[in-house]
């Protein structure tokens, strides 16, 4: 089994294991966070491939799409779901900023390493440092947008069903 298949297979296993550890009372929140992030990664990955910024030479459905399926639809949303479930609401501001930085760094470095060391993705333009900065911007933006949506969705409004 080569490295790409190992990563894809591990991604599914980790996703299933992470799913089983979600507390029962937070299942709906986790599902919404998961599906929401899938929507953003789906759109952004297609835009990146269309603009020839990123390529995915090894993918699960090579005829159907130019983007990988398991990392975009399972691994990155699982990272975001756990970021959202583990948000330290009652901690100090510094701790929360650190939580954001570490949580965004995890998918960024995962994406960076699979781009550099495997054929699951490839940067087509720019230096590696520039692409790293770009990944931080992309994931930071996605995390921020999805977090703001979830904050709005679960805000206490009159007559709103949570």
């Amino acid at each position, binding site marked *: 089994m080569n490295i790409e298949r190992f990563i894809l297979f591990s991604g599914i296993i980790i996703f299933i294991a992470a799913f089983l550890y979600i507390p029962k009372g937070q299942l*709906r929140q986790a*599902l*919404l966070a998961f599906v929401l992030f899938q*929507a953003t990664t*789906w*759109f952004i*990955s*297609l*835009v*990146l*491939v*269309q603009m*020839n910024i990123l390529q995915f030479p090894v993918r699960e459905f090579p*005829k*159907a*799409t*130019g*983007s990988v399926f398991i990392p975009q639809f399972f691994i990155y949303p699982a990272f975001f779901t756990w970021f959202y479930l583990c948000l330290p609401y009652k901690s100090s501001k510094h701790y929360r900023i650190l939580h954001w930085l570490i949580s965004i760094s995890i998918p960024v470095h995962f994406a960076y390493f699979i781009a550099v060391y495997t054929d699951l993705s490839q940067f087509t333009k720019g230096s590696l440092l520039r692409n790293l900065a770009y990944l931080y911007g992309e994931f930071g933006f996605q995390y921020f947008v999805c977090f703001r949506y979830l904050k709005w969705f679960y805000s206490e409004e009159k007559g709103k*069903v949570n």
Partner: protein
Amino acid sequence: MIDYPVRLFWKANATNFCFEYLVLPFMCIFFNLHYPDTKSTLRKVIYYLCILLGFTLLEVQVEKYTEILTYVNWYWFYTSISMLLLLYLVRTVYKWFFHLPKPFSL
């Protein structure tokens, strides 16, 4: 089974992104918002049939007169059946998510 000759993001995607990302979700949203929850089962079945037949008719016309969609090994009733399963699944998840009673019933 289906081909999409003319599409958005043609380099990145072999499927119809507009339909899957915008049309289908909006269809499911309005299907659920206007669902006749408190009416009889017959009314609910008629509601399902109207949505499915209307959508299938639209898709057949798009397939016939445009190049957005081409049936390779596909028939119109496959669309109806798959849309029925999808709408039912979305409705079930919607009812489960918002703690509504009897998520699996019509």
